[in-house]
């Protein structure tokens, strides 16, 4: 579930508010968006992909955590790791081009 909107990274673009398929965030004037309806989060990671500054963290668990430690997440390079893995973001190339499903399916036969 969505666990973190990093206040230090967020630029208040509110893209996450728009793109979340289940309307989890609320806009806040002159502040980062809040996680207003965490229980509606479907753990689909889409907000992270669209966040231009890697300010969001979606924990893999479908149930809420007690807390997350932003510093630890930064150190583990988990903030923005999904964007990195699919090559989304400025100066990156989409890695869809390297989709190797064909090799996998060949080995499945």
């Amino acid at each position, binding site marked *: 579930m969505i666990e973190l909107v990093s206040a230090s990274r967020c630029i208040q673009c509110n893209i996450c*508010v*728009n*793109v*979340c*398929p*289940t*309307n989890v965030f609320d806009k806040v004037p002159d502040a980062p968006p809040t996680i207003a309806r965490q229980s*509606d989060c*479907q*753990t*689909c*990671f*889409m907000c992270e*992909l*669209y966040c231009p500054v890697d300010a969001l963290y979606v*924990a*893999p*668990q*479908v*149930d809420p955590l007690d807390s997350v430690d932003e510093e630890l997440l930064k150190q583990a390079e*988990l903030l923005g*790791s*999904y964007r990195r*893995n*699919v090559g*989304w973001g400025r100066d990156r190339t*989409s*890695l*869809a*081009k*390297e*989709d*190797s*499903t*064909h*090799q*996998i*399916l060949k*080995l*499945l036969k």
Partner: protein
Amino acid sequence: MSSYHWRSQNSSTIDIDVDPNLQTDVLVIGGGPAGTWAAWSAASSGAEVVLVDKGYCGTSGCAAASGNGVWYVPPNPEAREAAMSSREALGGFLSNRDWMQQVLNQTYANVNLLAEWGYPFPVDEEGKPYRRSLQGPEYMRLMRKQIKRAGVTILDNSPALQLLVDAEGAVAGATGVNRQTGKQWVVRANSVIIATGGCAFLSKALGCNVLTGDGYLMAAEAGAEMSGMEFSNAYGISPAFSSVTKTLFYNWATFTYEDGTPIPGAGSQRGRSIIAQTLLTQPVYAILDRATQDMQAHMRKAQPNFFLPFDRAGIDPFSQRFPVTLRLEGTVRGTGGIRIVDSTCAASVPGLYAAGDAATRELICGGFTGGGSHNAAWAISSGYWAGKSAAEYARNLGEWGKQRPVEAVGEAGLTNGSKHQIKAEEVIQATQAEVFPYDRNYFRNAQGLTESLQRLDNLWKEIRSSQAADSQILQVREAAAMVATARWMYSSALERKESRGMHKHQDYPEMDANQQHYLVSGGLDRVWVRSEGLGIKRELVSVSS
């Protein structure tokens, strides 16, 4: 005089404080693959198009969050023959070759269009483009861009709540709400395409929580019929703690009991029922220990999001066992949905078309699909046809189509004027208690289905005698759609007294040649089911169960 009443007791009032209040040729409800293909196709036919999405067109729907294979087969007669025959037995011989051929043709053409539009398809080891797999975020970001280019007006965060119909009962638009501003919207249209996906009952399967059967409910309230709702018990494997129900890689898994002993017969495809059976009494673990080093590298590039939960939870799935569960994907990976009456993808109500998972997929895969593949191809093709047909219908209707008197036909939660306010959350949990359990839905029997149906009927009565508070209307409509969906599912499942496709009826474990027909269902306060021939003649060949 037209009226867009939010409530029937207010039907004398016309709410003029509606924003936006639009008129268009074609309204598309749902912004996943089927909806965007429908919108693009209608706009390319010269129609004005409005697309509304409960979430955000580009991220909502099961494809956007995940990605999948596509039933994309080059026009080589042998390859096409193999593609059609390979899964006819699995689907219980309910598929139709004319439809399959058309879908293979259209999917091939449209996926090639995706390449022209700039989808970065990989190349295989011979340097040829490989177009049988789509990564969801990339695919749907491109589709959004493409329909905007085609001039489609997109309303995001704007769930539709009820359809509008004219005096003859033809569908003429929809009303809904912007869930962020709370404002109502009304779109009057000459024709409407429902592309709202299937119903996964808020099971937290990847990308599936927007899929609550809303389109089925709206269509049924306008008089449309369903088909194949007994093929609705698809479950996806996921790590027990996570949402990621991508099952391809479990072909390289060993499934074990808690003590590490392999579970005999357990597997990703045909052995999934053994996993379900085991989960009834104890946890099941998996380890992807059959993937070689090379394979592991390919897997990461093919499906980056498969690894997200593991990387973040600090688990190496190739060397460490992890608990798994089966999440209900209902009609998303099932094959039932709104009945299609002809090759235009028309529903059984004039002016209404259905596409993608919202529509039945029995026509191309009978009673069994799996993730992506056939469903992805169907979304592309049926979306394309529905868009073309809806545009033509709109053209024939002309300007009168937007001026005709209309009324809203949403019922459940909207129209009875009762003071009783329903707790949607409780209805949803009660519905989940009937459809999640493996010994109720995966493995079905007459007694269990009958008991569930009684409780679901009671839930429906409760909804029908309640009125949703404005702030709760979306959740109440979702709850109503889930209850309605479950009732069509289980009524159809009771009627199919055999095991066919994914429908496993324990009282009738064999397939019965006399039941090689479709089950059409519908109704709200009174649910009905009838059988209908396939419209095709084919000999039932030998079947291994």
